[in-house]
């Protein structure tokens, strides 16, 4: 088994209260499913939308994240899967796809000393 990071990018979370509640409940159900099937290593965290970017040799500090809003990382989760293909398959259940967002699946480098 290997570890993978799901980076949740973009996705429009606005909507009517009813739509937002349904969206939230889908996420909760999906996370539960990941947990129940033994794939959830660490549920992770949501990220605040704002931030600072520090860049260059001058270490210039600017406001706001680097990416465009539609690509912004909104949170992350660590999962456990057989291989990258299985991890990608697992991500397909994520409700972010209903809201025009996407999941970036990144293998966590295995370090064998």
């Amino acid at each position: 088994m290997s570890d993978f990071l799901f980076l949740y990018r973009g996705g429009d979370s606005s909507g009517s209260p009813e739509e937002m509640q349904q969206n939230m409940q889908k996420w909760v159900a999906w996370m539960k499913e990941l947990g129940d099937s033994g794939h959830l290593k660490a549920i992770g965290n949501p990220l605040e939308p704002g931030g600072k970017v520090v860049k260059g040799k001058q270490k210039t500090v600017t406001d706001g994240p680097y990416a465009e809003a539609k690509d912004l990382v909104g949170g992350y989760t660590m999962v456990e899967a057989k291989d990258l293909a299985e991890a990608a398959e697992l991500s397909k259940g994520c409700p972010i796809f209903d809201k025009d967002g996407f999941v970036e699946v990144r293998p966590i480098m295995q370090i064998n000393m």
Partner: protein
Amino acid sequence: MAPHAVELDEHLFRHESGRMVAALTRIFGVHNLALAEDVVQDAFCRALEVWKFRGIPENPSAWLMATAKHRAIDVLRRERTARTFAPELGRLIESEWTLAPTVHELFGAHALQDDELRMMFSCCHPRLAEPTQIALILHILCGFSVNEVAAAFLSSNAATEKRITRAKKVLASSKKLFELSATDFSTRLSAVQRALYLLFNEGYHGASAQTAVRVELCGEALRLAGLLRRHPLASTPATLAIGALMCLHAARLPGRVDASGELHTLFEQDRSSWDKELIAEGQRLLDLSATGSELTEYHLEAAIASLHAGARSAEETDWERIVSLYDTLMAIRPSPVVALNRAIAIAQCHGPLRGLEAIRAIDGLDRLVAYPFYPATLGELELRRNEPELARGHFSRALALARSPMERRFIARRISACGE
């Protein structure tokens, strides 16, 4: 039981939306309604992000309220020099010493209940037409988006948007929410009662084809009527009677539209599917409503509904009594639809011919021309007196007027009952 119950009230966000908007509007002032709506949207976004990862908290309502409260304090602090907020708060929000405690107090359970009621009264502004009042109640207090309101009323998004925007302007013309101690309280209470009654009717008899939407509208009307009832000033006999009639009608919803979405008349409904608890609650409220000297149309409609709910079958119903209740109703609040229902009751007592005569005698029959159940009733009575050809003609006209696939299927079934 798991320590964290994941089961949420199905419409929690919608209902909390109404409560939060009402509380925030009281703090910010009605003229800042849009700001209040933004804060509520923020609170939901936050809940969505946090609950995704942390699960649903033990007390989701309290979580949402606390989030809205903190955002409100931020907004007041940031904008108190640039904006004017609710005049009733005055200096209390100017000083750091009083700002937070004031907001905390305004988010107390008792204040929240009052705010919701005051918002309901504010939505029933005399300058707004009844359909607009209902749209506004659904939008603000029931958390329906403009598109959801439009879908419920089968109107276009653009027209609904326009209607709600205009209504909000009227609302914002006074800075404060309606005062429950105002001198025009009882006039406004009548308007609120009427609006809730119409909201329920829209769900019960309305044109929306989706059963889920209709059940939801009835559910919202029941919830808001309950809110009205729990306030000592608003809990008048008429309010109790409205609660009674809503319960007694809602109890029959499962029989009216069955699991496969077919519409059934009172005569063919499976009475075992009626909700007995709701019937009991309706009867209890009807008993409680029988005080004072004012007999309202709501009392009469509730009494009629109660006779139906208590009868084992259509045949065993006290139709004589129902006719006399309709007679009184016609005296208090005459309408062609009430007259049509009265004619159906007369037909039950004295046969279809007398029923048809009663229909012909209705004042303002022209107001029923677009109502599919007017020709459908004529068809029903003609069929009962063995005039299938006449019946078929009426049903065909009804079919052309049907407002939803459900109504069309229902009338098509009646046409096939007319034989070859």
